[in-house]
């Protein structure tokens, strides 16, 4: 099971990030999680939103280079050791994690959520599914 993530190209200069975020805020799209990866010159903004179609359309219309892609959303018990378990499973399965970030929601204080993308995303998803790790669906994201 995968969820959709938005990735946008952001120049590493003042105001560039704020411009994209303000475009989204005008549409009323709600962000569940945000992460930014940066290099000296540019960054990639990664967001999980409740309405990806509206977000995509708005950004594209405003000349932002953006793409929707599949990532894995994992629900973890919010306690020491749970992330380590997930990562160990992936390592044992020979899967390399490209990036990940985490978020929590006020509605469910017992859980933490992890967004991750692996070089071999399908393989990672299968390993987690085989080990009964709870993964998020698109509906889960919408209803958070």
């Amino acid at each position, binding site marked *: 099971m995968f969820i959709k993530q938005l990735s946008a190209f952001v*120049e590493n200069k003042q105001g560039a990030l704020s411009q994209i975020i303000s475009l989204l805020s005008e549409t009323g799209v709600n962000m569940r999680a945000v992460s930014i990866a940066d290099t000296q010159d540019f960054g990639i903004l990664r967001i999980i939103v409740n309405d990806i179609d509206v977000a995509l359309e708005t950004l594209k219309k405003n*000349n932002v280079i953006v793409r929707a892609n599949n990532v894995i959303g994992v629900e973890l018990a919010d306690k020491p050791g749970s992330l380590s378990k997930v990562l160990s499973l992936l390592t044992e399965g020979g899967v390399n994690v490209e990036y990940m970030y985490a978020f929590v929601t006020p509605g469910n204080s017992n859980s933490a959520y992890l967004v991750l993308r692996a070089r071999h995303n399908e393989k990672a998803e299968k390993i987690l599914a085989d080990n009964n790790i709870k993964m998020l669906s698109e509906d889960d994201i919408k209803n958070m």
Partner: protein
Amino acid sequence: MSKYYQPEIETASRDEINNLQSERLISAVKRVYERVPLYRARMDKLGIKPGDIKGIEDLGKLPFTSKQDLRDTYPYGMFAVPMEDVIRLHASSGTTGKQIVVGYTKNDLDNWGDIVARQLVAAGINKSDKVHVAYGYGLFTGGLGIAEGARRLGCTSIPVSSGNTARQLTIMQDFESDAIACTPSYAMYLAESAEKSGVDTSKLPLRAGIFGAEPWTEEMRKQIEKSLNIKAYDIYGLTEIMGPGVAYECSEQKGMHVNEDHFIIEILDPDTHLPVKDGEKGEIVFTCLTKEAFPLIRFRTKDIGTVTHEKCRCGRTFVRMSKPMGRIDDMLIIRGVNVFPSQIETVLLQMNLSPNYQIIVDRKGVLDTLEVQVEITDGTFSDTISDISRLENELAGRLKSTLGIAAKATFVAAGSIARSEGKAKRVIDRRN
């Protein structure tokens, strides 16, 4: 519909062309010696009298003219007729220094119109067609030059001039433009705007484009032809010699035919100033044969190019010049290496990167730095930093092997590099 505008001269034999050129050169030299003090002084200094020039074989004896000469004699020092015979002035844009001003007599304008009309006909345009002129009208020769050609041919010109892209698109649709003339970078911008505003270019009557006034590549031609659904023709010209139409392209699209009944082209070795062989690179030098108001002898264009005398399949016999491979003026000297923006453009298009780029030259300490910024596109963007970095590295590697010096490659946001409505500003040199 005729294939040529003036078939008798456009398909004349080499002997006929040479004889006509010799006859006209003798008379042109006589005129400038009598009427332009700079030429009289230079020829006297070299010990040459007009009578020493017996034909085109004596061309090499004549002195050169440089852009600086035109600045030194600004405004009217090179004019060879009294002002009562001058009916039009144009001026160069002055992007590379002080502007210069040129003049035209009635005959000059008629001749100019004829050579532009040769281009229009070569592009398949006939009397019943409408030519959308999106070159600037004014002191710049682009707009009025194309208009003069349309007038001589008898087709309809639509003087839209440059700028206001939304209006250009409306006119193109409502007035049913059959052909367009503008700079190639503006043609690309128009195509991009058409796509954005949902104009289906395949439904437009537009079928030919005449593009010039700035360097462009074969890759750009392909993009323009595809996106505007037209055939794109390359026209060459320069204010000092006439304006657009000094050389024109036929449907073979294999070099531009130089209007040899009005101009002599020489390709000279930049160091020895001796002619190079067909196909070899050198500086393009022009001599005006028929110009009355502003006749230049052996004007050094600072454009680098080649010529070929090989027979063209279109049947025209005028020599063909290559697209200029760069201007000596545009040439950047970075860490002692000659770099032409056109080389960088070629690399970008080979890698299917955006044609919207900017070259930034700077100096860190004593070392020159070169950075090429390219807009990111849907096709080049990836969700993963390492993919984008890999592409940057590949671009940097290819630039290094093409240019011979290291360059930093950087992706920037889509739409962030200023679009030009006139000439493209490709280079930012911060060293001075």
